[in-house]
């Protein structure tokens, strides 16, 4: 009895000691997290409720910034553009990355080299990519030049023409971004047990059925992961339209992130910018939550 108590207190005492050591080790990252993540997040929420110019007096604005956003045609257009980008980009990215992952999945020659090749756009700097794509898109550029020399007709001015600019941005983004998801799917496909596929084949499943009824459900956790991550990053799209079109022509390619950036760093309305950022955050949170809620219906975790 006595021994047990001693042992217990001894153990719990040691556990407290571990806790302190753990805390000591965690402190650096906790401090970092608090300083560079939590503080800015809380601060931006505070700023969102203020009229906060770069220099000069700051005033409490209440919900003023949010109502201003609701009435701002540019913000509404940016919201629409962001949704349009997501709707175009996400399915394209998934189809291309799954398609290529399936294509290089069988034991084909040069498979590793192809994987590296497809992954290259992800690791090359976006700025360099954008400059190259500008040269491809611009009048007299690669597409226009090739088309003119073959057919004599001119290609559209992709980045400067209403109706084409968003398509051009999406195409460049898919090229830039599919490699990551392809790698995820490729790994998932490798992990599909050969016996299951063999069993399905024995049962008379054709290639399409095998893919649709066996392979896809088997890699559905990866699809769920890729969809969620891609959705989040595509809501935050900034670099591609910023570098390729500057939001133009007009506001055809101005996304929510670009709106936030412009309000903050060319108009210096930090309040409005923070409010916009929080609208984006809530939007992403909502869509991600909806995805998690819906995953039960189609994601299979049992083998």
């Amino acid at each position, binding site marked *: 009895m006595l021994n047990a108590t001693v042992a217990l207190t001894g153990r719990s005492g040691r556990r407290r000691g571990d806790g302190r050591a753990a805390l000591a*080790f965690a*402190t*650096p*990252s906790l*401090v*970092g997290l608090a*300083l560079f993540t939590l503080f800015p997040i809380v601060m931006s929420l505070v700023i969102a409720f203020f009229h906060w110019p*770069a*220099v*000069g007096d700051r005033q409490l604005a209440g919900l003023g910034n949010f109502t201003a956003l609701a009435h701002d045609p*540019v913000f509404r257009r940016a919201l629409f553009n962001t949704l349009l980008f997501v709707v175009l980009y996400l399915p394209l990215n998934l189809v291309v990355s799954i398609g290529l992952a399936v294509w290089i999945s069988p034991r084909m020659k040069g498979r590793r080299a192809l994987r590296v090749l497809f992954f290259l756009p992800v690791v090359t700097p976006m700025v360099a990519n954008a400059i190259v794509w*500008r040269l491809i*898109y*611009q*009048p*007299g*550029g690669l597409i226009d030049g090739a088309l003119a020399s073959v057919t004599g007709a001119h290609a559209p*001015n*992709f*980045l*400067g*023409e*209403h109706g084409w*600019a968003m398509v051009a941005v999406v195409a460049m983004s898919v090229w830039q971004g599919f490699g990551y998801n392809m790698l995820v799917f490729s790994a998932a496909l490798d992990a599909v047990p050969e016996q299951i596929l063999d069993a399905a084949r024995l049962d008379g499943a054709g290639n399409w059925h095998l893919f649709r009824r066996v392979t896809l459900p088997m890699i559905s956790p990866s699809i769920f992961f890729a969809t969620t991550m891609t959705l989040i990053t595509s809501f935050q799209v900034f670099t591609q339209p910023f570098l*390729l*079109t*500057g*939001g*133009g*022509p*007009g*506001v055809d390619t*101005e996304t929510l992130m670009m709106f936030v950036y*412009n309000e903050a*760093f*060319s*108009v*210096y309305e*930090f309040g409005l910018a923070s409010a916009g950022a929080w609208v984006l955050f809530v939007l992403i949170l909502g869509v991600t939550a909806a995805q998690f809620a819906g995953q039960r219906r189609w994601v299979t975790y049992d083998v």
Partner: protein
Amino acid sequence: MGKIITGGMSRLLAVGAAGIIASTVIAGCAGGDQGSGGSKAGDVVTLSWSMWASGTEDRNAWQKVADEVTAEDPNIKITLETAPFTDYFTKLGTRLAGGSAPCIVSMQSLRTGGYTSGMLPLDDLIAKNSLDVSDFDKSIMAGLAAGGKQYALPYDLGSLVVTYNKDMFEAAGVPAPKIGWTMADFESAAKALTRDGKYGFAAYPVDLYMFPFLLSQTGAKPVDASGKLALTASDMVGAFQWYADLAAKSHVAPKVPGVDNNFPDTQFLNGNVAMSVNGPWSVLGLKQQAKFNVGLATIPAGPDGSKTYSAGSGFGIAKSCQYPDQAFRAISIMTSAKVLGELGTLGRAFPARKSVQDQWYQNAFAGSKEVIDAANASATPFVTTANWDLVTKLLAQYGVQVFNGQATAADALGKVQQQAG
């Protein structure tokens, strides 16, 4: 994706991270005592200076200016920070907002109005140091002032002129533009030069390059007498439409590939267009980069003769600077006749001091003096609004559609006016 970090490794990292954070916090506290953009060790004050620069050559020219200050006054050291012009004002605005602005701030006349709240008025310091400002060109002194206060001492000024590719003119058999040439001369030259996939002119909706042509064509100015944005006035809409139609209708200028404010410069330097607009501050860059002979011409004359704008830049002091006296001493040296003369000889700046302007001509293109003199005589300072960065951005975004024939000038200018007016 990466290798799993081993226990020992992570402990090492944690210690390292703790060290970094600790030193950041300590440095942060120390910084709080010192204010921004300067520090003092003994009698020597180190001041930071932010400047725009387009490349190593440019940066070296400015580094020499910084060294000049220390040579003149060993108690002042300057740390030069440079950024490309397109990013410079974004950075500056953010740093002024964060209270971490550099001590010495470079300022362009077009943008002075937007940054006055973060800058120190220099009038008291000018009086206290009895600095003689009569040698500075009056128009650029006015350009760097706002609300009756002087915010910067000018280093350069310049009237916008046409730069042209002499080789292309000769190849096409088009006579070189003379001072006093008209818009009709310009349009017929542009037409003759547009051949073999090359174009006569680069038309693009960026402030300094576009508005001189609009001013000469109809007298339209982007800002009215009361200082308000006036883009929807009929003479402005008409002039903008005419200018955009050079690309959209008469096709003597290339299609504009989206928003790219370097477009006119790159097109001209690539030899893709025969004419562009530029200021004397670009002569150094043009001379070095162009693989053809460059000539200068005045902006073509409209019904009321040739008109152009002048703009320029200078150095001011941030309000947050703890050493305004030393900073003022520094910017006085940086805008002294000696330094400006050297910058003029380099071709980096057309000196804002009248006494040394001759030095700029020594290295400029042949025949430059007559053209620059004529341009200066017909120039008015380019007046802007406080939110000029926004106006510039919107003009490019909406303007591009007019240049590609997908919108009218009235439509695009109406939208810019509505969002920035």
